């Protein structure tokens, strides 16, 4: 290998740099953590699907995955614990032209935010939800989550968990999501492809990514290091597209059913809302976008300050 080639590779940087706030690196995630891997797949999906980054907003809750919002060079919101989905709902409804992604962890989305998760799926709000599931509350030190598989050792179940855990794809399918997929951090290409597919859907999409927490979950449960976890994901994952989500429950060391489980269409919240108002109100109904245009005209004709944002 010649010196010039080495120089060239070094200067090339990371292919997904355009999506990242490189001025915030290094990130806070532990060695072996899978969250960065999911961000890489996400960034690749954005680049591959040529999404307009200017109209993309990303909303996170609290936790290790909640920090994703701080590392992506997008309009990004690090909200409160469990409330990424309702914040994203307001953002999307106020500006329907935005592509809104919710990027958060299993505890944030399915425990403290569980109510919002099911209601957003029921309403079919046009959001793309990426749920990094590390089976644990990691930021706070490895406590039991609603997703922690039975018999796992955690800091709050030092003698092993005994609560049944959530099967998230099953939950969101039942609640009404139009797109449901699950991958692991071993499946980086499949994950990127699923994210790209979700961007083509209108409605509530949910992608679960099983991800290691070597610091707190794998270590406490003697499941080896990050590399051992990758081997486990590789060997025990079974790709079953279209598999019934009821069969996709997780155990500590068993099979992981992955794939695209649900891909269906039904009108999203905004479409239903506009149709209902139009039917009930006829000409009296003023669509939000129409109002924006009218307002700009109003400002142009009646206001001394045409650039003013004034409603």
């Amino acid at each position, binding site marked *: 290998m010649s010196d010039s080639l080495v120089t060239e590779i070094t200067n090339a940087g990371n292919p997904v740099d355009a999506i990242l706030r490189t001025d915030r690196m290094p990130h806070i995630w532990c060695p072996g953590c899978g969250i960065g891997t999911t961000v890489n797949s996400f960034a690749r999906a954005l680049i591959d699907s040529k999404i307009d980054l200017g109209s993309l907003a990303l909303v996170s809750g609290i936790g290790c995955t909640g920090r994703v919002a701080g590392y992506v060079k997008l309009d990004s919101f690090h909200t409160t614990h469990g409330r990424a989905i309702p914040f994203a709902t307001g*953002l999307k409804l106020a500006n329907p032209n935005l592509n809104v992604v919710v990027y958060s962890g299993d505890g944030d989305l399915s425990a403290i935010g569980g109510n919002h998760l099911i209601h957003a799926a029921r309403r079919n709000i046009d959001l793309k939800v990426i749920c990094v599931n590390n089976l644990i509350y990691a930021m706070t030190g490895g406590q039991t989550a609603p997703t922690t598989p039975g018999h796992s050792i955690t800091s709050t179940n030092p003698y092993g968990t005994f609560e049944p855990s959530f099967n998230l794809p099953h939950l969101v399918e039942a609640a009404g999501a139009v797109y449901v997929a699950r991958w692991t951090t071993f499946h980086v290409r499949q994950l990127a492809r699923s994210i790209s597919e979700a961007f083509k859907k209108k409605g509530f999409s949910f992608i679960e990514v099983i991800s290691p927490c070597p610091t707190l979950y794998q270590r406490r449960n003697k499941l080896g290091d990050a590399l051992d976890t990758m081997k486990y994901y590789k060997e025990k994952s079974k790709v079953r597209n279209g598999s019934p989500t009821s069969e996709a429950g997780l155990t500590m060391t068993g099979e992981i059913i992955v794939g695209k489980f649900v891909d269906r269409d039904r009108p999203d919240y905004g479409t239903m809302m506009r149709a209902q108002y139009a039917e009930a109100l006829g000409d009296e109904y003023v669509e939000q976008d129409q109002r924006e245009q009218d307002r700009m005209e109003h400002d142009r004709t009646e206001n001394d300050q045409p650039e003013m944002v004034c409603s």
Partner: protein
Amino acid sequence: MKADRCTADPRGVLTGTHFIDGDHACCEGALAAGARFAAGYPITPSTEVVERFAARVPKVGGTFIQMEDELAASITLQGAVWGGAKAFTVTSGPGFSLMMEHIGYAVMTETPCVFVDVQRGGPSTGLPTLPAQADMMQARWGSHGDYEIIALCPNSPQECFDLTITAFNLAEEFRVPVMFMMDEVVGHMTEKVVIPPADEIEITPRRHTRKSVEDYLPYGTNGDGVPEMAHAGEGYNFHVTGLTHDERGYPNMTPPVQDKLVRRLQSKIRNAADRICLFEEEQLEGADVVVVSYGITSRVAQRAIESAREMGLRVGKLRLITAWPFPEKKIRNLAAKVKAFVVPELNLGQMVHEVQRAADGQARTFAVSHAGGGVHKPEDILKVIVEASKCRIV
């Protein structure tokens, strides 16, 4: 940056003379102020505000969404604000309790918005259909950490209209959540409400940045300590977090950054307190006793004050329209001249402690407390006025 002025969008303004209750007037105030987004969760005695909004807003171009709980409602509205809307939510005691974390989020992220609390008796489920003024301290201190908010207290349906507009204007000017502290009686009483023509309603527009993407610092400020805002989807690629953050909006959890940020959030309100503090005063000159009241209680107090004057007592009236920031300077100046303050309120003693603190021993302070569920009898307030006028300056 000094806020520019403009007038209301006429399509949201129901110009004319109406006979409506305070809840409905509040809704009309929000529409006149330019609010085109509300998220709510039903709770007595506040629900009529969003019921009317749900009926009105599709005709003026906007959205109402009924969320699954108040936790959701209080953050959904903030998402809408960052999407470009003027937004609010409406609730009462138990729901207000659930919203506290997101009041803190709005303070920290400087999200301009309005929280309407139509107060009812508490604690807990308390008296769902009956009045109280017992959330006044919660409005000020309910979220964790050090912060300042603005709170307004209307005492009539007309003020529910007028001051809702003021609430939105202050929220935009200072980029702060404004608490609109109604009570069940004001919310449910029906009176004449005059809604002026749109061009007579002043609206404070959003402090939207005009800087280029390269020059824009999301939390950079100059002069008055209030940063300029951008909305999602405009290409600024800004970051918003509830974590302690620097001028770029990036998390920076160090004591110096915390000190700078939290002090700025506090001082942008405190430094403008004289301008924010609205009150109505009557015969303060030469008064021996000043009755300090707010909301529905001020209307009962009026009767007591008039009776006391008929008895020959020298009684002044100070009605707080702005409860927070508390008009400390006003009370302190009065305390040097009067014998006593009498503070009737529908709680067991909340704002009275602020009056006492501001009076700082220069005048005596008497509470006229009431646990809620009704309003005071004027004679109960009168009795304390008479007692207070006999007292000697300490």
